[in-house]
C-alpha cells in the first residue's frame, strides 16, 4: 500500500473531528472520500499533509503510513519534497500577487536546478492551455476555474507522484468541471495516484476507482465505486435519489 491511514483520531480542542478513520490508497489508484459538510474530509487531507495546528489538529491516535513508514513526524514541506505528495487545497490558495508563471515557478522551490522542471511546465501547459495564454497575468485576475487549474498545475510542478485534491469542482461551471476531471483522468493514466475529496459525490464516484463515505468522522461505507453507486443508502443520502 502506498498510503495507509489507520484508526485516525484527531481533536480540535475538546471536539473530536475524526473518530478512528481507516483507509488505504494504492499506487496508481484514484480513491475518493465523499461526505457531507463537516464530515471530516478536509481534516483528513490536512492531517495527511502534516500541517500544524491550527490548520490541522494534532493526531491523537492512530497512524498515517507512507510506503509502510509512519509519517507523523514528517514536516509539511518534506511531505512534498521527500514523499512527493502535493495538496491542491480547498479554496485554491494560489499566490494572487504573483503571475501564473511565478506561481508555477514557486512550486519548484525544492527542486531548483532540476532539468525536469522545463518538461513539467510544458506538461502543465498542455494539460491546461488556458494557463499558457495567461502566464504573465497576476493570478488573482484569473477566473475561478482558471485559478483551480493553476492550483492543480502548481501541485504538479512540485514533481509530485500523489495528488491530494480538496474539492476541485467547487464553484466551477459545469463545462470547466468536466474539463478539470478530464485533465485529472489523464494525469492518473500517466501514473499519478489521486486521493480526491469531493462533495459532488456523483461526479467523484464516476471518476474514482474506489470510494469511502465519511459521515461525521466515521467511514460508513466503502468499496469499488460501481458498488457504491448502486448502494441504496449512498444513493439516498448523497446522490439525491
Amino acid at each position: 500500500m502506498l498510503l495507509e491511514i489507520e484508526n485516525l483520531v484527531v481533536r480540535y480542542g475538546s471536539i473530536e473531528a475524526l473518530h478512528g478513520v481507516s483507509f488505504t490508497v494504492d499506487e496508481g489508484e484514484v480513491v475518493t472520500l465523499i461526505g457531507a459538510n463537516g464530515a471530516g474530509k478536509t481534516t483528513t487531507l490536512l492531517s495527511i499533509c502534516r500541517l500544524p495546528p491550527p490548520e490541522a489538529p494534532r493526531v491523537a491516535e492512530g497512524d498515517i503510513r507512507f510506503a509502510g513508514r509512519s509519517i507523523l513526524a514528517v514536516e509539511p514541506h518534506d511531505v512534498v519534497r521527500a514523499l512527493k505528495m502535493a495538496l491542491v487545497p480547498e479554496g485554491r490558495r494560489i499566490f494572487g500577487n504573483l503571475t501564473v508563471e511565478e506561481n508555477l515557478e514557486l512550486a519548484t522551490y525544492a527542486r531548483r536546478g532540476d532539468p525536469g522542471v522545463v518538461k513539467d511546465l510544458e506538461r502543465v501547459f498542455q494539460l491546461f492551455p488556458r494557463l499558457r495564454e495567461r502566464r504573465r497575468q497576476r493570478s488573482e485576475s484569473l477566473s475561478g476555474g482558471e485559478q483551480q487549474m493553476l492550483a492543480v498545475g502548481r501541485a504538479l510542478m512540485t514533481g509530485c507522484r500523489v495528488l491530494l485534491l480538496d474539492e476541485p469542482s467547487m464553484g466551477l461551471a459545469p463545462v470547466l468541471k468536466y474539463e478539470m476531471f478530464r485533465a485529472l483522468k489523464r494525469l492518473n493514466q500517466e501514473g499519478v495516484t489521486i486521493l480526491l475529496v469531493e462533495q459532488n459525490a456523483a461526479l467523484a464516484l464516476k471518476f474514482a476507482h474506489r470510494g469511502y463515505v465519511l459521515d461525521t468522522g466515521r467511514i460508513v461505507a466503502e468499496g469499488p465505486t460501481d458498488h457504491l453507486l448502486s448502494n441504496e443508502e449512498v444513493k439516498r443520502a448523497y446522490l439525491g435519489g
Partner: protein
Amino acid sequence: MSSQPTSVAVRPDGTAARPTAFQRWSVPALTLAGLAVLLWVGQSGALTKYTQTVIMFMAVNVIVSASLNLVNGYMGEFSCGHGGFMAVGAYVSSVLGVLLFAKDRVFGPPLLPPEWALVGFPLIVLVGGLAAALAGLLVAIPSFRTRGDYLAIITIAANYIVISAVENLDVIGGSRGFMGMKRVVKAMGRAWDLPWMLLWSFGFAVFTLWILRRFVYSTYGKGVMAICQDEVAAEIMSVNTNRMKVAAFMLSSGLAGVAGGLFAHIVGYVNPGSFGILKSTEALVMVYLGGMGSLSGSVLSAVLFTLLLEALRPLQIIKWIVVPLLLILLMQFRPEGILGNRELADVFPGLRRFFRFK
C-alpha cells in the same frame, strides 16, 4: 545564499531573450561611471565636504531602506528594529577597525600595520554585517510562531536589547559613544590618497541592491513572497518557511549592519542614541515612501528622504514633527508609496531595452 537565477528555467517558449551586450553591460558600466564621478568629485574638490557627506548618507540610506524592504515589503512582516542591527554592525566594525588599524587609548597600538586598512576596511564592514546577521536571529526565531503586531513588538524589543547592551558595555564607551574611526579612514587615505568612504559607500550600496535583486528574483527568493501571501500554501509548495524566514531576516539585518559600519566610519563617531527607535522609524518611513516590495522605490525614497532631512536641518527638533506629518499625509493620499510594489522598469517599460539587472 544560493541564488542561482533558475527562474530562467521557467521559460520553455524562449521568451527570456538573451540580453544584448548593451543590456548586459549597462549596469556594470553605470556603476563604474558612478565610481569614476565620485573619484573625480573627491579628488577635485568640486563639491564641498558637506555635499560629499550627504552623498554618503544617501548611499547608507539606500542600503537601510532596501534591506528593510526585504522583510517589510517582500516578506510582509513588520520589523521596526532595523536601527538595532545597524548598531551591531556599526560597533563591531568600528571596534575591529580601531583595534586593528589605529592607535587608541583603550585598545593600545594597532595590531596590524595601519596601511593594511586599505584591504581591511571592506572586510571589517562585512564582519560587522555578519555580526548583525547573527543578531537578526533574535527576531528570526520568534518569527516562526508569531507574526503581525506581536512580531513587531518583538522587533522593537530587539532594538532596545541591542541599545541597552551597548549602553552598559563600558569598554566601548557605554552611552558616551565610541570614536577613533576617523583614524582608520585617515590610515586608508595615507596608504593611497583616494576618497575611500565615498567609493565604499557607493560600492556597498550597489552590492546591496545587486544581492537583494538576485535574491528576490530567484526561485529560492520567491519563497519570501510566498510567505508574505500565505504561509500554509507556501509549506504545501515545499517551502521550508522557518528556514526561509531565517535567511530573509539574516540577510536583511546583515545588510543593515553593513550600513551601520559605513555610517560609523563616515561620521567617525557612534553612540547608542543614534541607533534608537528614531533611526528605525526613519528606515520605515523610507520603505513606505518608496513602496513595499520595490527596490527601485527604496533607492528613490532613500535619496529623497536624505535630501529632505538635510533641507529640514534648520528646523532642528521641529523636523521630527514634519517628518511624521509627511508619513501621515503619504498614508492618506498615496498609501502604496511612490512606486507601489512595482519597479521603475514596470512603470517605464521602455527602460527594459537598456538594462538587465539580475
